[in-house]
Structures are given as structure tokens and as C-alpha cells.
């Protein structure tokens, strides 16, 4: 069922939810959105990838926010505890909770999108919307290049180890080891890119004009209506937030 979602519908939904969450500025809504994204990722069968990725991103951020605003919040008035210059204030903890939950909601929603979207479908949908073909190439090329690079880096390391590279010792020898791996990697990548450019040019990649695609992504009218409504809701949320906060921000 999820496979039939048009990539732009998923992208619009993710973007609108993130914008509305930021505009709403309520930690309850943020937490609800994050939880909903978690539940959806379980149902889509990608929870095993989304949740660890989100944890790696969010854990340091949340700890940092807790330390920063939990202990040092000069604007806070309600002091709960105090050690020297560090003051735990209700306002500081609330601010940390607001921002951490808001970031968590946005990260979860976008990770759910990027781990469920079919990249070739997304690229061809973007091209059908007259986004420059180069953008689709860069996106798809990078996403397919990353796993290949990891394998290549592994091969380079093995080759250098067979020639006597040892990964231990002080900082200088470690930096030397990094240099022995980086230079062959960069050289091979730049060289590959040159070959790829010739192959692409031979197939008319650099020429402008209309393009046809073998991949046709179905875009049912219901999803178009959904996208329009989602964009409208996001625009209304932003307009309401701007209207509500403008005088306060302008006066200060």
C-alpha cells in the first residue's frame, strides 16, 4: 500500500507536517508527531533503520540541550536548584523540552520519508515537474555511490595493510594512515567521475530540451488534492504564526 504513494505526496506530507509542527510550537503536538512517525515506520517495516538513525542524531542533541538550558538559562525566573553559577529553572527545562521534541518530530518525519521513498520514482517524479535533470542525477548518483564507496574504502585499506599499514600508535601515525587511504580514494573517485562524464555526454546528458522517461509514476487525482490541501494547511499555519508573533518580535 505504501509503495503506491506518489513520492511527491510523501514529500509534501513530510514537509507540511514538519512546518506545521514548527509553527504550532507545542511540545505535546511535537511528541505526538514523533510517536506517530515511529508507529508508521513500524507499520512500513523500516523501524529497524529509522529508529537507530534517529537515535544517533537526536541523543547528542537532546543531551546538549538539557545541559545547556537545564543548567544555564539566564532568562529563567523559577529556580528549582542552584549550584554556583548553574541554575536549574522551570523555564529552561521547558525550553529544552520544546526544542528537543520539535527537532525529534521533524527528524522522525523526514527519516520516515527518506527510508520509505523509492529513489528512482522520486527522481522521475521530480523530472516530470521540470526540476533540472541535473538535480535528479546528483541525488540518485550520491545515494547509489555511498554504499559503493564504503566497499572501495575497505579494499583500499586491505591493500594498504598488505603493504604494511598498521592502524595504531600516536596521532601522527594515525594521520599518516588516513592520508594513505584518502589519497587513493579521492584519486579513484575523481578519475571515475571523468569516465562517467564522457559516458553521460555520449548519451546526450548535457543537451537541454525535453526528455522522456521509461518510468511512469502513477499520480492519482486524490493524491493531488491531498497535496494541495497539505500545502494550504502548512501555508495557513505559517501565516498564523507570523501574524501572531510579528508585533512581539518587531518591538524587541
Amino acid at each position, binding site marked *: 500500500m505504501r509503495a503506491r504513494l506518489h513520492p511527491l505526496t510523501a514529500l509534501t506530507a513530510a514537509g507540511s507536517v514538519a512546518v506545521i509542527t514548527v509553527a504550532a510550537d507545542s511540545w505535546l503536538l511535537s511528541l505526538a508527531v514523533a510517536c506517530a512517525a515511529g508507529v508508521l515506520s513500524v507499520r512500513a517495516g523500516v523501524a529497524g533503520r529509522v529508529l537507530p538513525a534517529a537515535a544517533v542524531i537526536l541523543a547528542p542533541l537532546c543531551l546538549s540541550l538539557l545541559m545547556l538550558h537545564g543548567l544555564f538559562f539566564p*532568562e529563567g525566573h523559577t529556580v528549582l536548584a542552584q549550584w554556583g553559577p548553574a541554575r536549574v529553572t522551570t523555564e529552561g527545562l521547558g525550553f529544552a523540552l520544546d526544542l528537543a521534541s520539535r527537532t525529534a518530530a521533524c527528524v522522525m518525519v523526514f527519516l520516515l520519508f527518506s527510508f520509505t521513498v523509492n529513489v528512482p520514482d522520486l527522481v522521475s517524479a521530480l523530472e516530470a515537474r521540470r526540476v533540472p535533470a541535473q538535480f535528479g542525477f546528483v541525488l540518485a548518483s550520491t545515494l547509489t555511490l555511498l554504499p559503493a564507496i564504503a566497499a572501495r574504502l575497505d579494499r583500499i585499506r586491505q591493500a594498504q595493510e598488505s603493504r604494511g599499514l598498521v592502524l595504531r600508535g600516536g596521532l601522527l601515525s594515525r594521520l599518516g594512515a588516513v592520508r594513505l587511504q584518502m589519497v587513493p580514494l579521492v584519486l579513484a*573517485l575523481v578519475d571515475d567521475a571523468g569516465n562517467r562524464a564522457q559516458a553521460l555526454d555520449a548519451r546526450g546528458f548535457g543537451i537541454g530540451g525535453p526528455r522522456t522517461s521509461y518510468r511512469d509514476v502513477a499520480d492519482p487525482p486524490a493524491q493531488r488534492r491531498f497535496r494541495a490541501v497539505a500545502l494550504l494547511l502548512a501555508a495557513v499555519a505559517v501565516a498564523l504564526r507570523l501574524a501572531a508573533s510579528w508585533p512581539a518580535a518587531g518591538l524587541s
Partner: protein
Amino acid sequence: MSQQSLTVPAPGQAAGRGRRLLEIAGAAAIAATYIFLVLTQPADIASGPVSFSALVALGGFLLGAVLLIVAVLPVLPTSTLVLIPVALVLNVVLGQLMGTTGLPFYFDSIGTVLIAVLAGPATGAATGALSSIVWSFFNPTVLPFAAGAALIGFLAGLAARGGLFRRFYLAPVAGFVTGVLAGVVSAPIAAFVFGGTSGLGTGAIVSAFRAMGDTLLAAITKQALISDPMDKAIVFAIAALLVYALPRRTTFQFPFVRRYRVLAGNAPVAAPAPSKA
């Protein structure tokens, strides 16, 4: 005949002017957003309007980054375009590889700087912005920093055009200046969108400034002025090392490198040979 064609406006000239306008509009959007955010920064962040600043920062900076991409991307030659995915991958992979050395820096713009040195400021800016957008597929918190990444690529390209990569000791100086500007521009994003920095080390520095009574934006800007110039100086030095480690045959195939004499030394003698073949 050929003299006449020099004066007749080429059909692509109007399109070129349109793209230049888009580039300027993108840069203006980023600059205007920064100035607006600093002028209207909420005096009391506890009372709520941080959401307003977050929306303005996200909207303005992303608009600027997208305008830059739209202006630059369609006119790039294929040989430069295929390098952009390489740069993005290098940003990710080299960032992780440097992480194994245990140094407290992030080094997530090595690929961007490398491409900017080889292909110029406009390509560098587009690479930086694209890098953030593509990277956000794995880590959505990178997306709001697209404008800062574009600025890094642009300034690295300018430094290369100005010949700062011809002398090895000048590259870190250019990186230091780039780090100052990029750090200052990125600070409102960290302050208003995330409310802090994502590392415990940088968080501790921000906490110290907060304990002295600074506003959040001031504290994060000061922290960025401590961390970013050092980070970018090292990144520029690494990029310079990599460029000089690449064979001349590879680096001198880029028109930007040949035209502005970006690198020390002469073009390889064998350069004219391919035209005969």
C-alpha cells in the same frame, strides 16, 4: 562574419543574465534573512517567539540555497556535474574517516572545498547547498545549514581564484576567514531552529557563555567563532594537500584551474596531446 557575431547578442546571453540575477537573489535572500534575524531576535526567548524566528530562518536560508542551486546547476558542464556526487560522498566518508583519528572537529566540508578549488565559486556554492539537501536524506538536521554550506563552497572558490591555494601556508588562512563568516551565518540556525549545538563539547562552550549572561544567539555565535575558523582552516589545509596529491593530469583538466592558475607549478607538458588524438 566572425567579427559580426562578436557584437550580436548571443541567444544564451539573456538566459545568462537571468541566472546571474537568480544567483544574486539567492545571496540576497541569505543576507537579508541573517540581518532580519539579528535585528528582530527575541529579547526573551522563554516567552515563545522562537518559533517565529525558526520559520523565518528556515524559509529564508532554504530559499536562498534553492535559488543558488537553480541558478548554477543547469549550466554546469557534465565534467563538473559528475564531480558533485563525489564531493558529497567525500563530505560524508572523509568526515567519518577523520572521526577515527579522535580529533574534536567535524570536517564535513572537505569535498565541497575540494570541488570549489577545482571548479570555482559558483560550483562550490551549488555543491555546498546540494550536499546539505542530499545529506538530509540520512540526517535531516543538516538541511537548515544549506546556506552556510553554500557560503563555504563560494568562499573556497573565491580563495582559489585569488591564488590563495598557490602557496600552501595561505590555504589555512583562507579557511580561517571562511570559518568566521560561515560560523556567524550558521549561528541563527543553531540558535533558533535547534536551540543549541548537537555536540556535548560545543554545548559546553555555549553553556559557559550563557552562564556569563549572553543571549542564546550571542553565545552560539561566540562558540562558532571559536570552533569554526579552526575547523575550516584544517579543512582547507586538507583540501590543499589532496589537490596537490592528485596528479597534474587530473587537476589541470579543469578549465577553472587552468584559467586562474589556481595551483602552483605549470600545466603538464603533455596537456596539448589529447587535442591531436
